Structure formats: C-alpha cells, structure tokens
C-alpha cells in the first residue's frame, strides 16, 4: 500500500463537520473497489450497513459505515460510503468478501429494505419472518405505522389490542 493510493481514496471523500466522519459518495459498480481500498488502509470492519429510503426521488441510499480498531494516526475513525440504488429493484454487490463482519448487517438491510446483495453467501431474513412480511420491507417510507392522537376516546385508543 502506498501513501499516494491512500490519499487517493481518502481524498475522494469529504469530512463532515458535524461528527468528523469521512463521507465517500460512490456508485454500485465502484462500491466493492472502494471497500477493498479502504480495507487496505486499515478500515478492518463495518460498523453498520443500512439504507435510507427517499420515495420522492425514487432512490434508496445504501449507507455503509466502516471503522478501524486501534487507530494509530489522526485519520477519520469512521468512513461513510453512500451509494444510490434504484428503489424499484435495489441490488448491490455484497461486501462480505471484503468485510466478513458485513454478513448479518447485509441480511438486516435485505430484511428491512429489500436490498438484494449479490453474492451474499446466506441471504435470508434475519429479524423478521418471511411469512408475516412477504414482500413488505418495514423500514421503507411507504410502510406506515399507525399512531394515536392525544385526545381521550372511550376505551382509550383505537390501537388498544
């Protein structure tokens, strides 16, 4: 690994002022390469793989946070990789080949957002049951959780089981 290459990957991103994370915007094709280069730089594991749903813009943003143990210099401790996916059929390459720690995180993103990770060794739902949530991905914005108002109604609330 050379210093120039290191700076190349890191310079692609911008430091976010609020929390000091390095934000790298990338594409589906580039995702694995970016991940691989980050791993070579010492970002040994993923902290979180999740997504944010933007139904108006018809996109789902895959957000990967990678981090390092035993930080030895003043590099950003957390790197955030953002990838825009097509909301109709979100498919992303798996990162389990780069970071084995991504296994359950990707399963969870599949579970909650329906993002299919291409090449994942064991892509099953992890937290929800397929029988109850067939084709439904609860963390997308079109899944609405009903909430009660603050006015008293006879028998308390419409959601009282």
């Amino acid at each position, binding site marked *: 690994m050379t210093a120039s290459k290191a700076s190349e990957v890191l310079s692609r991103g911008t430091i976010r002022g609020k929390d000091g994370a390095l934000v790298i915007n990338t594409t589906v094709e580039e995702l694995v390469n970016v991940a691989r280069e980050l791993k070579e730089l010492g970002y040994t594991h993923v902290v979180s793989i999740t997504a944010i749903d933007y139904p108006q813009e018809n996109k789902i943003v895959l957000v990967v946070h990678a981090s390092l143990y035993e*930080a*030895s*210099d003043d590099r950003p401790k957390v790197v955030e990789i953002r990838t825009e996916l097509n909301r109709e059929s979100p498919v992303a390459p798996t990162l389990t080949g780069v970071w084995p720690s991504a296994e359950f995180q990707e399963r969870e993103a599949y579970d909650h957002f329906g993002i299919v990770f291409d090449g994942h060794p064991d892509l099953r739902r992890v937290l929800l049951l397929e029988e109850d949530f067939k084709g439904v991905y609860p963390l997308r914005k079109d899944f609405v959780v009903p909430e009660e108002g*603050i006015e*008293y*109604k006879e028998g*308390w*609330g419409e959601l009282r089981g």
Partner: protein
Amino acid sequence: MNQVTASSQNRYAVKSVGARLSLVEKAVWHARALALGFKRLVFPIRHTHRYPYVRAIPSARNYRGMIVLLDEKCNGCSLCARVCPAAALKMITVEQGEKRPVINYERCVFCGYCVDICPTEALYHTNVHDLVFMNRDSMIFMLDRFTKEPEEPEHVKKVRVVLDEERGLRYVPVGSDSE
C-alpha cells in the same frame, strides 16, 4: 502509519489470565471455595425481603412512581399528553372546554416526562409503583382517581433500603432510629 499516539495507547493495560492451576493450587482453591460457602452459611448476607408483606419504600428524592394530578394547578395545556412517549396520557374535555389529562397505567412507562414538562407543576410522582389491578379497564385512571394519591395496601410492613459497607443492602423499618 504506526505512530502511536501516547495519550490514547497508554490507556490500555495488557494483561494475561495466567497459567492453569496446578494440582496443589486446585486443592487450595477447592478448600477456599468450600470454606467460603460454609462461612456464608453461618453468616449469610440477605438481599431479599418478603415482598408483598414487606415493602421497600424508595429512598430516591425524585422517585418516579405513580402520578397524581393537582386539578387546581392544571391549565389544560396538553403538553404532558404530547410528550408522553407511550400515549399513556390523553386529554379529556371537561366543562367550559377546559382540558385535563387522564392516564392509562397499562401503557405508562414511568419516564416522568409529563411531570417534568408540566409548566405549572400540576403533576407529581408518588412513591407507589406496584399496585395490582384486576382488569385492564381499571388501569385507566380518569380524573376522579388521577387526582388522588393511590391507596396503599393495608397490613404491610414498610422498610427503607440503606446501603451498607458490610452487607451491601440493609432493610430498616420506616421510622426506626437507624434510618
């Protein structure tokens, strides 16, 4: 790349669990374990009390128990219902369009947000936190019950928890000298 920043690296102390126990050490630790067990048989520490017959009264100054409404202070601003994270407080309309909160203890999580947000201090916590209800509907406290302190069961010995250096916790009867 491997420059170690002294301040953070010094925070870690690397240790080892040590070697496996030898036969003699094993015998010694067997004896010590048995001796300690016997010691605690003779001089027990007890952290339980006979709960329904003996009740520990919380010592916390701001204990978050069941909530009581002071009707005359309330101005019906509905902040308590809006801040309630569990939708346990809801507003009911009384005469002249005035609003008052009512509470459903089936849902209440005793976070105390409502008491802390009330701008007129019309809500306060009692020390009671463990009443028994016979059905779910009786857990809804309308104004008649919400404005009174909950009745405590009779024939209950009340104790207070005292932290103790030797025994961890001690229970002393409420009103005794050592309290």
